[in-house]
């Protein structure tokens, strides 16, 4: 009988730290800002959703707030992303994971073991968000009245308008997948809400990362 067999799931000995206080708080600050940006942006995209402007005290104030929140979002997002960059470097094994991804999503076939803290799907999401947020930030600055827009040629502002809208939808799809994946993979949510995951969860989803616990170069 090994000591492990006496450990109940959820008891302290059974938990592994995955996100620090700082990481969790930054993540949720980014998430709150994203929701505000999404709701206010949506009102300006389609009149069907203009009612969301009421959540911001009307259209004029919403328009004022959106770029300010956006700038704050970008700062927090990159501060957060910087902490995660080391664990999101792509490795050759990621290709194998992606090849088997649809089987994994449908719970068919053998899952390819994940080497690091993140699987290839998470890494691709990470890098696509790095790009999408950069494009949203730049195009957003170009159309920010009254600070930047007056100095920007109208042609460039038109391009910025379109690209900003397209990227906002790319981001919505990305965030949608991110949120759903966290809900779908049971045991993931507590990593971001409480900072820890169970040993069984880590072993199943991130065996490479799990193996680093107890090692000298561990997390």
């Amino acid at each position, binding site marked *: 009988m*090994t000591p*492990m*067999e006496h450990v109940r*799931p*959820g008891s302290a000995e059974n938990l592994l730290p995955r996100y620090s206080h700082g990481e969790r708080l930054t993540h949720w600050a980014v998430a709150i800002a994203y929701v505000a940006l999404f709701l206010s942006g949506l*009102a*300006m*995209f*389609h*009149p*069907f959703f*203009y009612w969301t*402007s009421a959540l911001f005290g009307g*259209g*004029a104030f*919403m*328009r*004022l707030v959106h770029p300010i929140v956006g700038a704050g979002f970008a700062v927090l997002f990159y501060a957060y992303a910087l902490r995660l960059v080391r664990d999101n470097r792509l490795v050759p094994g990621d290709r194998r994971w992606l090849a088997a991804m649809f089987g994994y*999503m*449908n*719970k068919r076939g053998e899952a390819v073991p994940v080497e690091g803290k993140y699987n290839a799907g998470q890494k691709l999401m990470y890098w696509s968000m790095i790009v999408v947020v950069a494009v949203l930030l730049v195009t957003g600055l170009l*159309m920010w*009245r*009254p600070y930047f*827009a*007056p100095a920007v040629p*109208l*042609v460039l*502002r*038109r*391009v910025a*308008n*379109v690209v900003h*809208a397209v990227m906002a*939808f790319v981001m*919505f*799809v990305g965030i*949608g*997948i991110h949120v*759903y994946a966290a*809900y*779908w*993979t*049971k*045991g993931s949510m507590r990593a971001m809400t409480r900072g820890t995951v*169970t*040993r*069984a*969860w880590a*072993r*199943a*989803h991130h065996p490479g990362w799990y193996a680093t616990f107890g090692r000298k170069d561990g997390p």
Partner: protein
Amino acid sequence: MAIQSLDVVRSSASMSTPPRVRAEETVDLAKLIDVSKCIGCKACQAACLEWNDVRDEVGTCAGSYDNPRDLTDKSWTVMRFYEEELPGRGLQWLIVKDGCLHCEDPGCLRACPAPGAIVQYANGIVDFQQEYCIGCGYCQTGCPFNIPRFSNVDQKAYKCTLCSDRVAVGLEPACVKTCPTQALSFGSKRDMLDLADERVRELKERGFEQASTYDPAGVGGTHVVYVLPHGDPALYRLPAKPEISPLVAFWRGGVAKALGVIAMASVVVGGIFHYMKVGPLEVDEHDDGRRP
């Protein structure tokens, strides 16, 4: 809207059809600007400020007669002075009264995201309703003529109203009323085009072979029409073939809006359906990791 108008035929960012009980009965109106008769006195500029009860900053001289140098949130019309060397004619002083052209297909209205902030009346006048303006600047990107200007006091967009308040009670716009050389005329669009044709014919007889009327078709025609004695719009810094930018048309068009909504809906529906079919991905918490 402080005073409701039943003459609105189009309203920005609106999901419902605007009231148009009188729309079928209303005559298309237009202002005619005959550049060949304009002496650049700026009485129209003064009348505009006076009727609309605004006073612009006293500007500085930029080496030409242009003052203010550009349209502003207060100066909704500005005389622009251009010096052009034309072959066979020598130096020409071209004076263009700049301001909103009141497009039949207004790019500003199409781009505007605020419901009812830009309306078009049945008589063709395109009017900003500052009460609903949110200050985003989309009207500027939508406009092919670079007309709307924002106030840095209230962050709302302003432009020529074609004196919609005067026109509504049967008066001509203040600029037309005050023009001392009758370079400005106002009436039904058909009458204004007839007048323009007549004037172009006269100018051609007098040797201005290139004289033409400026009523650009790319924006469905305009409710401010120019007579250009030298013809070429570029001489007067007017776009030769103005149209709503394809970028703006796509971005504010039904296809893009539909695609956006479909993208969002598919994420939500896709997520729900995936969960219902595949079920959650769970791990056995009692599995200690050792193979049996």
